[in-house]
């Protein structure tokens, strides 16, 4: 047993290392290029400098766009979480006919209606609603797109909350609102946190919606700004871009770490079979 065991242990660690490397190596660029005096689209040992960071901080819109991103994505994440929580709770606890078909249908739609063609109706509608050039409007559109999958995933979390909690509160005379506030929400918190991160991450990288719906440069989020970090011929501005990429990644990573350490980042995503 011993030799076999050792071989298996070694095999295990080799596999683990290989997989970790596979995931880590592509990230080298973002770790090196921001601090490289001559950044390129390749990875090499950097010629250390902080000049790029200064350049990025001096960029007229870089920092501001991060604030916009935060505004838009926090709104989106909160709205998605709140609405999805309400909807998934009702769908989980009350038998509504055709519920599962509805969920699958919406999920299908949401993965398709992201293309450029759909932007025409969305634009026209937002225009009629007077929500052009509004960060709130952008958040609304993103919320609509993310909700189906959020409900789909969150319903599994809510399904996992023991029903006896609510029943027991109900026997004590708690109203629906009290049950939600005192029992269901606190218990489903890990799920809510996960969904919030997920919604945040998804809206964080969205370029097309804010680009088309926002007019003022000082309202544009970072995802849009990243597209503009080029010169007149379309070549990438390699001094600002890597640093900005790094900065732009920090909020999602921080949020993830926060949620992961507090609740554990878990997914029951549609695992009910």
């Amino acid at each position, binding site marked *: 047993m011993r030799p076999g065991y050792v071989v298996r242990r070694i095999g295990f660690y080799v596999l683990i290392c290989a997989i970790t490397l596979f995931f880590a190596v592509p990230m080298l660029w973002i770790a090196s290029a921001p601090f490289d005096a001559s950044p390129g689209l390749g990875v090499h040992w950097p010629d250390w400098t902080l000049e790029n960071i200064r350049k990025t901080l001096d960029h007229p819109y870089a920092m501001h766009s991060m604030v916009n991103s935060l505004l838009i994505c926090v709104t989106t994440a909160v709205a998605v979480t709140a609405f999805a929580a309400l909807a998934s709770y009702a769908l989980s606890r009350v*038998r509504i006919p055709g519920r599962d078909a509805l969920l699958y249908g919406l999920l299908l739609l949401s993965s398709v209606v992201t293309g450029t063609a759909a932007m025409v109706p969305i634009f026209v509608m937002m225009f009629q609603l007077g929500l052009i050039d509004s960060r709130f409007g952008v958040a609304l559109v993103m919320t609509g797109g993310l909700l189906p999958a959020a409900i789909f995933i969150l319903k599994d979390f809510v399904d996992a909350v*023991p029903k*006896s*909690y609510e*029943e*027991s*509160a*109900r*026997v*004590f*005379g*708690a*109203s629906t609102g*009290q049950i939600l506030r*005192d*029992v269901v929400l*606190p*218990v489903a*918190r890990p799920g809510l946190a996960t969904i919030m991160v997920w919604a945040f991450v998804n809206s964080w990288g969205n370029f097309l919606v804010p680009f088309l719906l926002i007019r003022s440069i000082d309202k544009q989020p970072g995802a849009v700004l990243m597209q503009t970090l080029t010169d007149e011929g379309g070549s990438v501005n390699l001094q600002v871009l890597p640093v900005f990429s790094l900065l732009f990644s920090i909020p999602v990573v921080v949020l993830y770490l926060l949620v992961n350490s507090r609740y554990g980042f878990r997914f029951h995503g549609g695992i009910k079979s």
Partner: protein
Amino acid sequence: MAGIDIEGLATVYPNGVRAVDGLDLHVADGEFFALLGPSGCGKTTLLRTIAGLEAASEGTVRIDATDVTRTEPGKRGVAMVFQDYALFPHMSVSENITYPLKVRRVAAATRLEVASRTAGELSLDGLLERKPGQLSGGQQQRVALARAIASEGKVLLLDEPLSNLDARLRLEARTFLKKLQRDLGITTVFVTHDQAEALALADRIAVMDSGKLRQLGSPREVFARPANTFVANFIGSTPMNLLPGKVLGDGTVSVAGGSLPATTVSTPADAEVTVGIRPEYLTLSTGDVSGPSLRGEVVVAENLGTQSLVSVDCDGTLIGVTVPEETEPAPGAPVALTAPASRVLLYTQETGELLNSADHTAGARS
């Protein structure tokens, strides 16, 4: 404090299962009442219908003479302890206990006071700041009880409150629960599938099967004179022997190749019956015996502590009999079994109903 009156109650699930099926029941004020039955017989459903968590499909539920059939659970004045306790994992013990008061917007100061008083009654002092996850099973059960008591319901409903505890703890909790109920005097309905628990705790027991009542009576009645073979089979810590037999004219029944005395008043001779006799009421002798008896050979013996359960093969039928410790015969030994007539129960073979039902109590007191 209040009684519960149930009339013609039926609860049908959306899938068409009639989990409770036309039940009439009266629980007296201050009574400790047990609902007993095998898994799936509808005990939980009945309890939940009383609580209002399931809607009655037919019939009425009255608590304290008020019809509550259509009342919201929170307004029926009942308190309930769930099988999994349903303690809120994110609240401290103290918050859990006083949650019913918080719902009613009782001031925080009063709540604290109630929490510490109730915790004192249930020996939970010192645990008030813990979360449920940091408590042992027995402590959790007491917190759930404390919460139910703090809600000041007129009726306490308990759904298998002991089944999550380990064997030793269960015995302690049993005694504790019985004493608590006696002290509070609160009307209590208690669901269990463990007959020993029901016997030990209840003032009266309702034995259910498939949503229907099979017997209603004191532990003694239910144990000594099960009204039918279903109850007979279900009650008792060793399984009752239920054997096909035939009534003989002479006050005996022939069974398993031998015969036993029986009160055959109401039974015609030659009637085919099911003979029921508890292992505890059979006497095993290794020597000769006079009078009606069964003869057979010992198969195995199981130690029950102060007693042993011996399985005897009588003419191909295995019959259980208890003997005091240290007196078990060796496997293979020939033995004879006898029983007092008052302990031999006769059931019809068709419906399984008790036949020699004349004079319950006289029969039970041998």
